[in-house]
């Protein structure tokens, strides 16, 4: 718990909301983009390249006034499989969860295979996920091609 407290103080503490911690460096921005909160009035505090005992360097995101549902959090696991989600109420961590990679993900990425039918028809992309050591492999359920996460572009 000590390390968490130190971390939380690296950027301004929040009263009520969600802290996504231990995000691999560089993935923080992708998560932000995916959260689609940037245009909304939600107050977000972001830390990139913060020192971390476990990871040396990490990214961190704090979202004020919003508690993430487990499912919502797991969707982000593709960018940060080992990140932790802390739900904060009255400046205290009420719940702490490790992100869990879901079995599949819909509508988030476009299939990199240009000859995939998903580009021609009005359908939502869907990938099966498989954690492989450092990387996550995604298999398009339509064209069956397998890609590494860093090869995919968000829609």
């Amino acid at each position, binding site marked *: 718990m000590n390390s968490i407290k130190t971390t939380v103080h690296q950027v301004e503490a929040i009263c009520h909301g969600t802290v996504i911690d231990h995000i691999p460096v560089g993935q923080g921005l992708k998560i932000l983009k995916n959260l689609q909160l940037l245009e909304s009035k939600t107050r977000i505090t972001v830390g990139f390249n913060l020192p971390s005992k476990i990871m040396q360097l990490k990214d961190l995101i704090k979202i004020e006034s919003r508690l993430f549902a487990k499912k919502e959090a797991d969707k982000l696991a593709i960018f940060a499989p080992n990140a932790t989600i802390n739900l904060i109420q009255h400046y205290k961590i009420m719940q702490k969860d490790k992100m869990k990679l879901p079995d599949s993900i819909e509508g988030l990425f476009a299939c990199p295979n240009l000859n*995939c*039918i998903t580009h021609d028809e009005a359908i939502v992309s869907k990938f099966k996920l498989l954690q492989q050591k450092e990387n996550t492999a995604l298999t398009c359920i339509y*064209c069956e091609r397998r890609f590494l996460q860093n090869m995919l572009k968000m829609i």
Partner: protein
Amino acid sequence: MFSNIQNQLFNNHILSLSQFDRMMLEDLIQAILYMKTHGMPNALSGKVIGSCFMEPSTRTRLSFDVAIKRLGGHVIGFDNNENTSSRKGESLSDMMCVISSYVDAIILRHPKEGSAYLASQLSSVPIINAGDGSNQHPTQTVLDLFSIYESQNTLDGLTILCVGDLKYGRTVHSLIHALSYFKVQFIFVAPEGLQLPQYLIEDLDHNHIAYEVYSHLEKAIPQADIIYMTRIQQERLDDTEYQYLVTPYLLKKAMLKKAKSNMKILHPLPRLNEIELAIDHTPFAYYFQQATNGMYARMALLTLLLNKQAHWGTLT
């Protein structure tokens, strides 16, 4: 005897080889064998099959048409996209919804990968994937597997030599996948730049399947039980490149002197010049029997899709 496959294939789709396991493939081989020896003239009587070829493939279409007719069924459809509404911009999704309301099963050939899976999500009747872009062509794989079994009387303990375009060759990728359920070993011989993709090598390692890569075709032949030849698409290379790169990978009769007596040569056909004509009359040639097996394989698959209880008789 076919209880397993019947339960799983009846009213289902045939989209990809990944839906089969070893037991299903073994059952399927027995069903094809039955079709070949006994036939089943009424298996599709009263059934209408939609044959939707959105890109031309004469051989595959004919093979399905004949299979349906030999089972007593009717075929409707089209064999290219000239006259269909896709030119007017109708989506595959709409087309599948409409056609599936007319027929008992749909055979779909389409240039885009994933089209068969999409169709299966929308169709109220079974979809048979007859090739979706460079992805899958499961009935071809089943007939290849059957031809190997038929010619060797087993699928275990064989050495399979794969030659030619191993990078883009869809048939060879699916066959490697299918054979990985059995105790086989592979030898790969391919021109530079057309070697087996890394992800397939990783799959082989993952499944503990032994393989070797040879650069010299003739040296690999004496070990092979099966030589699986593939077409090298000439349009991928210019003329000089083709001559230089491809010539060492064309199979000549003179190379077969040290071949095993049980060795058989397969090719998905049509061939260009990968197999010298002089080989056709040797006991090694098996590609025409393989093409005939395509009809029996499709007969067996169609029967299983549309009959919960087919009267297979008894086989040993």
